[in-house]
């Protein structure tokens, strides 16, 4: 099924023109106009013959700037596979993945790595922070790997840490931070620079409900500032932060919620 879409054109969306407010600077124009992530009839099969596992079986999904899409489903439904394909960490067996209009299959390894470093932010359940680097060094790392000068990378990293409210703790090492603070560093690392696509896999992990909500607010705020986001979760309360929820079962998108109306419509009782 096709689960593309977004806000209805009739609802003016202040997010649509708010790219300039993103904390990490200007964002290049999207060559496709209005779709940051476009999965087209994507299949992913692991193994072959009778032992083959069909993780995804023809999923299409389009995500626009300013739109957060949650993907829900039980274990083994294909949600994490969808996210790794969207981020170019894995390739589909059939179908195409486009990020900002670029078909990932047409990029060579270097081009794909550059796109991943510059345009895609990942927030994993496993934070993958490097223990021997401070918070700001962890956040600056992807920029430095991409060839940025150390000072420029540090400045952008501090911007990102400010965005997640951790500027004062920038020079602490991960083991000097609480679980929630470490998660916020991981989010800053995912948001640093000109990331247009933020992919989050169970980003609230084992955090308590208040800290988990703070993490989702950060993700929501960045998407509201013009990024596109995909959030994989099995928690309904977390998925509820999205504009649209897609349900996966056995590698197929079985349903999705309609895009939400504006808050004003909800308050007046005409939101459904």
């Amino acid at each position, binding site marked *: 099924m096709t689960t593309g879409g977004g806000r209805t054109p009739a609802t003016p969306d202040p997010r649509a023109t708010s790219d300039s407010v993103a904390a990490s600077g200007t964002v290049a124009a999207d060559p496709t106009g209005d779709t940051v992530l476009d999965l087209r009839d994507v299949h992913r099969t692991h193994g072959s013959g009778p032992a083959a596992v069909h993780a995804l079986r023809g999923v299409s999904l389009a995500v626009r700037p300013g739109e957060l899409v949650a993907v*829900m489903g*039980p274990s083994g439904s294909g949600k994490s596979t969808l996210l790794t394909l969207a981020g170019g960490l894995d390739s589909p067996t059939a179908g195409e993945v486009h990020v900002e209009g670029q078909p990932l299959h047409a990029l060579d390894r270097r081009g794909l790595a550059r796109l991943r470093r510059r345009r895609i932010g990942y927030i994993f359940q496993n934070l993958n922070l490097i223990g021997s680097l401070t918070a700001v060094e962890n956040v600056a790392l992807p920029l430095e790997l991409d060839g940025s000068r150390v000072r420029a990378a540090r400045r952008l990293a501090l911007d990102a840490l400010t965005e997640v409210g951790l500027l004062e703790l920038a020079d602490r090492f991960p083991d000097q931070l609480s679980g929630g603070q470490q998660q916020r560093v991981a989010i800053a690392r995912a948001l640093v620079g000109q990331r247009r696509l933020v992919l989050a896999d169970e980003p609230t992990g084992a955090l308590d409900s208040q800290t988990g909500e703070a993490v989702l*607010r950060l993700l*929501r705020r960045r998407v509201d500032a013009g990024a596109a986001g995909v959030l994989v979760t099995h928690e*309904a*309360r977390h*998925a*509820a*932060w*999205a*504009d649209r*929820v897609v*349900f996966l079962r056995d590698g197929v998108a*079985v*349903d*999705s*919620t*309609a895009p*939400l109306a504006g*808050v004003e419509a*909800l*308050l007046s*009782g005409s*939101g*459904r």
Partner: protein
Amino acid sequence: MSIRHGLLALLERGQMYGYQLRAAFEESTGSTWPLNIGQVYTTLSRLERDGLVRSLPESAAGQRPYEITDAGRADLALWFATPISRSDRPRDELAIKLALALTTPGVDVRAVVQTQRTSTMRTLQELTRLKYSSDRPEDLPWRLALDAMVFHAEAEVRWLDHCESSLVRHRPPAAGPAPLSEAVGHSGEEARR
């Protein structure tokens, strides 16, 4: 909650007339429980009949304020001190619907589950959006009212997830449709294996 106790709680703040009570009620519940003015006046006249409020002389603008009586205060205190009984709630139509879907030939139970899940999920999104739109300290009563609905909707989605995983394990009885009680018992047995 009864509107009756809601109005008593508001009058405990001070005397108010009908329209003020309606506005204050909606403000307290974040418009999640809209009242019409007819409900307010009907409730006030019952409260007055029961001696829990008394009406005061009309103002020059033709508005009649009400104030809480000592008996009203005692009733309100008792309400705050008494837990809400779950047995007072109406029957859960959704649980009944799914139980019947399971034993009615030709019904795609998983589709019933998914249709409800999508609908409840959307409600949850709307509630979350409302919550996100407001984080001023004075909005706390509203946010807590929204949270109650958020938790309720979330519980429903979790229950639907549970129903779906139970359905995957469920083996319908071989011969003909079984009576409802047997089918439910069978499902529970499967789940325990």
